[in-house]
């Protein structure tokens, strides 16, 4: 059991994150900026801090989820209420009691909305804040013991109190030099999110956003600009925005939908442009309604639009390729984007079944998708497979008899686990050249893999089908033999995926999971891809050493020895002995962590491939290099086989280049990191002998090579991994093995 003692770091984290969460962030720097701003009005600042403490303490002692707590998710609504109420009234004991009560109320509203909206997979945004602040605002008339604050009216007086004449002069400089109302209102709107009325707060927040995330910063401007233009277009007086605390609705909507809850991209940006006018309308209309109650709609338009849009997106029937809801929230649009743009190709989530090729050995695609003979129209997503010799012939001898054809009578296998739903076994094989149009598909087996995915294997040999409807089959199990029944002039195997269990169903555009494509000097591993006409393909077979080495078991401990040969101090620091631990978290994700420097490398193993999926923590660690070198490793056996991938660019690029890339990342990526792994020695078919691979990591700027890292990887019988990394003139050697040895 984990100890329940209070941890200072947890408390600080939970407080700071409560501030940063207002902008969907966990950036400590942004949080520090925001705290400073909140104390521009000390009454409000204290109110906010008290609320955060109360909400977080409640969450901690009532035993709510520690991860959410430390991420600030229980605190930020209370914070906003504390700030809002604190700003209304003069600081006094009754005020802070009121704030405490409001904070408790907000906390429970937060929990309730987390539960209710969580069921629909939706965030609760600032809905709890809205309800709580309205409760307070509607009672305002009766709270006679509290005095309405006069702050915010005499800005210069307050600034003088905070920082003296110099501060006032500085502010005055800003006031006089930023004349454009477009820019002024932008800063005011940003500041208004923290209930601040003056320019400086907005400027500081803008700087904080820029440092935290370029995409968020760009989105804040985009959202604001669209609203500004729309106001002008329809003739709403815009200057009122600055004083009604609602300009931020546009900014927050843009940040939330443009880059946080959805993976940022051209399409998400496009939708911001389409949606923001609606936010404007909701703002203007709700303002009229709320005016009758003498309260402000605050962030209501933002909450309405974001929740509505996210909920609508969830009801889509077709799994989207664009406008994708952030699959793993990394807390920063850039990270989400870089990880996702690679993962889109690495893990096409639309493919829950990883089908293997339904035969032994090397077969040739005789007709692919959209084939020239029969794969047309609704039946275009199908494959015909045959066996050819090295001259490309499908048969030996005259080709007049079934037995002349290499594929005839060869085993046909189940592509994936499933249940047989149809098995036809009694159609005679045609004479070569003849076709049977009555029993078009000939002897056929249909296997149900899941409710919407069926595989159909046709033209099987007369009386060769070994399964019957209802049989459970395992991936790789023989179901029949390749034959020449049905509309088949010569022996071949017809294979298609479909969504319904019937013979004659239309085809489904669905790929094979992992297969090897034969090329001139070896093989390339393909993942979730579609074999094309005339390609020669074969199933990879598993290498036991690789399978065992990359089967990381929770609780497993590894030690890693690092030797460095470099003149640079940066690299020299890497040397030493480190311990690694394998763990699995509540989301069933397995990761390797290095407790000494809090780095984590997340991984995924689908039995055919080992993937490192993500890395968090310091990059100047042994684990980082381990992660980079072994980014993707096929567990199949075949020397000279090659696999390609791209590493998320934020893993390899930093500094000004990445800073610039962030700005335009959703539209265009000019930085790229290619990963290529070549299997040089793969032991042998008995999986004895060492495995040698080379990983080549190429950094590219506008497609041009801008640096190369070579990693020679050697894996021994006992799962000892030796990696020699070389770049520029620096060498790093990692030796990783199980601690038990």
């Amino acid at each position: 059991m984990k100890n329940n003692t209070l941890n200072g770091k947890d408390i600080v984290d939970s407080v700071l994150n409560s501030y940063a969460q207002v902008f969907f962030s966990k950036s400590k720097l942004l949080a520090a900026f925001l705290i400073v701003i909140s104390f521009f009005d000390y009454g409000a600042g204290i109110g906010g801090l008290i609320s955060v403490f109360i909400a977080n303490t409640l969450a901690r002692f009532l035993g709510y989820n520690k991860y959410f707590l430390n991420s600030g998710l229980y605190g930020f609504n209370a914070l906003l209420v504390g700030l809002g109420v604190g700003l209304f009234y003069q600081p006094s004991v009754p005020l802070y009691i009121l704030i405490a009560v409001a904070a408790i109320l907000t906390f429970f509203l937060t929990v309730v909305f987390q539960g209710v909206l969580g069921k629909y997979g939706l965030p609760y945004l600032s809905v709890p804040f809205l309800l709580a602040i309205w409760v307070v605002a509607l009672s305002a008339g009766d709270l006679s013991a509290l005095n309405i604050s006069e702050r915010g009216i005499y800005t210069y007086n307050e600034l003088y109190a905070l920082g003296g004449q110099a501060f006032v002069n500085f502010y005055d400089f800003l006031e006089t030099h930023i004349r454009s109302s477009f820019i002024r209102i932008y800063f005011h709107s940003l500041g208004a999110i923290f209930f601040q009325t003056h320019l400086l707060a907005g400027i500081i927040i803008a700087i904080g956003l820029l440092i935290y995330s370029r995409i968020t910063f760009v989105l804040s401007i985009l959202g604001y600009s669209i609203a500004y233009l729309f106001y002008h277009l329809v003739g709403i007086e815009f200057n009122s925005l600055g004083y009604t605390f609602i300009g931020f609705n546009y900014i927050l909507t843009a940040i939330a939908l443009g880059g946080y809850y959805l993976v940022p991209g051209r399409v998400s940006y496009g939708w911001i442009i389409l949606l923001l006018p609606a936010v404007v309308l909701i703002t203007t209309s709700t303002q009229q309604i709320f005016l009758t109650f003498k309260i402000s709609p605050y962030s209501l338009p933002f909450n309405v639009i974001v929740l509505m849009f996210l909920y609508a997106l969830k009801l889509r029937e077709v799994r989207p390729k664009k406008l994708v809801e952030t699959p793993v929230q990394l807390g920063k649009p850039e990270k989400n984007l870089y990880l996702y743009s690679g993962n889109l190709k690495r893990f096409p989530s639309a493919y829950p079944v990883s089908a293997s090729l339904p035969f032994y050995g090397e077969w040739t695609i005789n007709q692919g998708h959209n084939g020239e003979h029969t794969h047309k129209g609704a039946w275009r997503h199908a494959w015909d497979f045959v066996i050819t010799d090295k001259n490309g012939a499908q048969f030996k001898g005259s080709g007049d008899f079934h037995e002349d054809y290499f594929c005839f009578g060869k085993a046909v296998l189940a592509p994936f686990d499933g249940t047989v739903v149809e098995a036809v076994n009694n159609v005679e094989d045609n004479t070569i050249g003849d076709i049977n149009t009555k029993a078009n598909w000939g002897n056929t087996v249909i296997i149900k893999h899941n409710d919407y995915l069926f595989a159909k294997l046709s033209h099987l040999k007369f009386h060769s089908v070994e399964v019957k409807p209802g049989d459970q089959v395992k991936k790789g199990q023989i179901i029949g033999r390749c034959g020449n029944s049905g509309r088949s002039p010569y022996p071949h195997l017809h294979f298609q995926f479909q969504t319904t269990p019937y013979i004659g169903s239309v085809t489904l555009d669905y790929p094979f999971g992992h297969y090897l494509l034969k090329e001139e000097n070896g093989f390339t591993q393909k993942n979730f891809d579609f074999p094309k006409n005339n390609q020669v393909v074969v199933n990879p077979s598993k290498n036991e050493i690789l399978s065992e080495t990359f089967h990381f078991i929770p609780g497993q401990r590894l030690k890693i020895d690092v030797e460095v040969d470099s003149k640079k101090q940066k690299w020299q620091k890497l040397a030493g002995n480190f311990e690694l631990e394998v763990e699995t978290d509540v989301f069933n994700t397995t990761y390797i962590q290095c407790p000494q420097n809090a780095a984590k490398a997340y991984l995924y193993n689908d039995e055919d491939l080992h993937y490192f999926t993500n890395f968090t923590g310091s990059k100047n660690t042994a684990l980082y290099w381990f992660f980079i070198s072994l980014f993707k490793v096929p567990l199949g056996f075949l020397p000279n086989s090659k696999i390609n991938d791209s590493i998320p660019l934020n893993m390899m690029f930093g500094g000004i280049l990445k800073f610039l890339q962030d700005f335009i990342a959703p539209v265009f990526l000019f930085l790229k990191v290619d990963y290529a792994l070549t299997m040089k020695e793969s032991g042998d078919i008995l999986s004895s002998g060492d495995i040698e691979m080379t990983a080549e990591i190429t950094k590219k700027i506008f497609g041009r090579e801008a640096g190369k890292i070579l990693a020679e990887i050697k894996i021994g019988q006992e799962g000892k991994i030796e990696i020699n990394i070389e770049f520029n003139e620096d060498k790093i050697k990692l030796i990783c093995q199980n601690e038990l040895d």
Partner: protein
Amino acid sequence: MEKLKYEKPLISKITAGMPNKFGLPSKIKTVSEIDGIPVSKLMEQYGSPVFVISEKTIRETYAEAKQAFETRYPKVQFAWSYKTNYLDAVCSIFHDEGSWAEVVSGFEFEKALSLGVNGSQILFNGPEKSEEDLTLAINHNACIHIDHFDELYLLIETSRKLNKKARVAIRVNMDTGIYPMWDRFGFNYENGEAWNAINRIMLAESLDLIGLHTHIGTYIMSASAYAVAASKLANLYMATHRKFDHWLKYIDLGGGFASKNTLKGAYMPGSETCPSFDEYAEAISNALISSEIPHENLPVLFLETGRALIDDAGYLLTTVLANKRSSIGRRLMVIDAGVNILFTTFWYNLGVFPTKETSDFLEETTIYGPLCMNIDIIRDAINFPSVKVGDQLVIERVGAYNMTQWMQFITFRPNIILIDTEGKTHIIRNKEKLETITSFEMNPKK
């Protein structure tokens, strides 16, 4: 117009109009070139007799065999049977194609190592393995196929001494329904000796049992015998798993696939009667796949076929030395290649073919080699056209065993030529000279 070839007149009984059981007498084929190179050119350059090996045929045959098995069974590995032909050039082609090495002596083991074969990819068979050989094999992590209990005891002792684990398999002999049953090698299946050996090995800490091996015989003309062998080994494989929770890694069905040569005494030519790779592959893989073994745990299938992979790639080019008649008037012919270099002539009716067009008339002939020994008979009866002294002949399908079992006797052994895939010729073994023989001799009298 070219001058017609002169043929000596001959009186023979008329058989026209009386087709015999093989139909009308047919013209014998001529083999004038090998892989596009004229036989006359080869002999002009490399002398007579001369062995010629076609790399193209080796690679094509290998590809055919590999495809036959790999499209029927998920994990297949060939191991080149060294004793069939252990010329460096030949072995290298097989290793290049991906074959492992199957050796039966310390000499062959060292030869494989010298060709760069990784020790762990050598299968060490045979009844004769000295302590020295076993030490070599253990140190190179080879797969040692144990033949008998005495070898097992020696191996346990040797591996203990070396303090290293030895990777082993046992050779199993069994009744597969063919005659003769080879029971002189390995442990018998039916009487329980093989199971006994497995138990002892599994309990021996210094041994790691990884496979089962059998070699049911040679020139097996029935594919079904392999199916019987495969099922019996599958039974042992499953029994080992059941008792010891240990999946063996491979089942080795050895060799013995027939080539297209015709055995002496055979009624029909071998090319018509011998099973193809497809038939062997079908029988073996069906037997393994339909056995009790779950398909996820199917072992690697090893094949040590030698003869069927190399026989067709070898040719012997020879020259007619003399034509004569026996006391009863039978036609006799002497050629310059004898049984000392053509060992397989004891087993097969080898195909002998002229290199130039001949007339349609064939006469039963005995072909003798050049040795001054009565046994030197290449063909005791062959319907052969008339050829003249100095004419060149080609003997086909001599790639297996001849170049390893030949002996230096009376004459020198000839050149061996390889025609590579680009049609270039290379000497891969030189013709012997006097010093080749005498350099090994010591003469105390001189």
